[in-house]
């Protein structure tokens, strides 16, 4: 069991803390497990607020500089909160050639949000992501768990509007 007091954080409730403790306990003695721990904790909370990074560092017996260093290096980890729906736009070459840039600018104009940002009402987060490997469907947009293929700039708003 983790012996540390956890800090208070508005986005993390008790159930989440106990799952976080589980993740840390399972991985504490595994060398090189910090990336796994960060990923699983991010799955629990949705993002990685700095107090959580500190807590993970203490639990894993790693300096906070090292935990922060890893969290800031990899694209998967986010230290800012996300919206209810994350719109992922594939920025792979095939999607680019097929017009994802125009799709992105349509979303940015309509919802006043930039790549990497979240709308003020926290309805959407917009994220340009690395190639999803579904090039046959280019341009590809993933919203939540749904993959949408052949998304052109004139179709995108209709698709996005389905997510409240």
């Amino acid at each position, binding site marked *: 069991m983790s012996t540390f007091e956890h800090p208070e954080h508005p986005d993390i409730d008790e159930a989440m803390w106990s799952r976080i403790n589980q993740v840390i306990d399972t991985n504490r003695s595994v*060398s*090189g*497990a*910090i*990336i*796994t721990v*960060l*990923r699983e904790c991010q799955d629990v909370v949705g993002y990685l607020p700095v107090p959580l990074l500190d807590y993970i560092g203490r639990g894993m017996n790693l300096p906070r500089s*090292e935990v922060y*260093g*890893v969290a800031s*290096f*990899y*694209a*998967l*980890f986010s230290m800012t909160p996300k919206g209810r729906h994350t719109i992922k736009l594939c*920025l*792979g*070459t*095939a999607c*680019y*050639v*097929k*017009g994802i840039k*125009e799709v992105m*600018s*349509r979303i940015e*104009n*309509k919802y006043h949000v930039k790549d990497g940002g979240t709308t003020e009402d926290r309805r959407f987060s917009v994220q340009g*992501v*690395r*190639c*999803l*490997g*579904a*090039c*046959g*469907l*280019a341009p*590809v947009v993933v919203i939540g768990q749904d*993959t*949408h*293929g052949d998304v*052109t*700039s*004139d179709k995108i*708003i209709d698709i996005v509007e389905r997510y409240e």
Partner: protein
Amino acid sequence: MPKFTVEDLKSIKAGHADRLAFKDKIYLLICGGTGCHATGSLKVKDALLSELAAKQLQDKVTVVETGCNGFCAMGPLMVVHPGDVFYQKIALDDIPRIVQEHLIDGKIVEKLLYKDPSTKKPIAVQTDIPFFAHQMPRALRNKGLIDPESIEDYIARDGYLGAARALLEMNAEQIVQEMIKSGMRGRGGAGFPTGVKWDFARKSEGDIKYVLCNADEGDPGAFMDRSILEADPHAVLEGMIIAAKAIDARKGYIYARTEYPLAITRLQIAIARAKENGLLGQDILGSGFDFDIEIYQGAGAFVCGEETALMRSIEGRRGMPRPRPPFPAHKGLWEKPTILNNVETLCNVPQIMLHGGDWYASVGTATSKGTKVFAMSGDVNNIGLVEVPMGTPLRTLIYDIGGGIPKKRKFKAVQLGGPSGGCIPEQHLDTPVDYEEISKVGAIMGSGGVIVMDENTCMVDMARFFMDFIQEESCGKCTPCREGTRRLLQLLEKISQGRGEPGDIETMEALSHTIRETALCGLGQTGPNPVLSTLRYFRDEFEAHIYEKRCPAKRCVDLLEFEIDPELCTKCGLCAKACPVDAIVWQKKEVARIEKDKCIKCLTCYDKCKFGAIM
């Protein structure tokens, strides 16, 4: 569960022969790759199952969810055996018809067949479709055929017999010699001879050694490894077992991209099945050899495709490369001797053990042996996964297999090798697929991404796109890459925004050569390639942007002013309806007009107009 012996493998193979020859029943092979899942293949499968039950055909017909078939753009896909009939773009409403007409009446449903893009004639049999006909599947030999979650299906296709041979009949040196004889070169991109790499690690002293599989397919526009892992995960495991025996390793890791959830799930299932049956773990096949594999999920960093960076990442640190030597074969993961091979390389290994190195080397060119898998996408009719013998001309790839360029547009360039690669123009399309020949024309073989671009692609914009990627993914450890790529990106942005000045091209060239010579790892050394190769063949486009402030392909929006040509306008109003900001004024029977202060240059009207009236 009892552990398999070689006899067990052989009896499973014999017992499954009818299933794989499609002799006992009708088989419906539904593609369950990422692409087809996204277009709804799982719903099609469920609908088929319930329709079969309703017609009481469930004993005569078996539905199999296979891995990625490769013809991704046509999904959801299904192949019916016997007969090898290929159905594409299947909708839920089509299911009753398929069951009634094909399965009960024995008539092929013509509406769902592939149609030749030029003759519009339907083609029923999968192997008659040009996309498949010109291919030679070796790495992809099981794709679309076996259920990737069934170890019996894999064994029935000679699975684990290569490992059995390597473990029971060969010593480490013989395995390495067979690999050297095969002429196999690393399919991850650099093309280093696999057998030679294994030989270094074999001779390296150490009680602990590691075998790593690089499944961090980071090149944008490449999906070979994803498809292999989804369709045939056991082949990769078997290749790793053989590699482990060759260098005497006891532990292996597969470093997999977290963006590929389905591939990871299939790998997890495969590892669990292999462990249950004693094909991983202790005393594999009674040979006394122990080996275990773990999956390590990456967290999104392109540079982790570089071997030393990948090893740092498994160690739980920032994935930054270190200078070589020492090479990983001497000091790799946790400072122990390590080999790292790509997914495609590993899945060829069992075949080489089974049929011999000479068999593998029997196709290909003088220096590039065997076959290569390519992921073809972009502006080409047939998008998907392609495996051809080395030496196949690019033209065959794009026109015979790919079916040419859609919308009657003209071919402009093909981009090979991802961000570290280069663009090849029309005049070099007869270049054969061969490590050396491709680098002569300024690109690299790379991992196998082939992106076709038509005349509407701006090469300055493409160079900017790739440089943006490289700059973003630069880990920041060495100055030439960290600062140099950023500076190149700034120059390219300046040019595409119409602020280019005389001398910019020369500055980019000088900078590119400096980065190439001084960067620490492969990412930096090849980083300037997109700039150098576009400059080599499309210098005039750069000059048009700089001196005439003009984008010939009409993609760089800062250089464009949109107008409607009254002569060409048919007064249809499509552009006005499509405009998202109501910047186009149009009334029935009148020529449309663009209000320039409202226009956001989104190109929607330009793409919508069928008459080329917007310019």
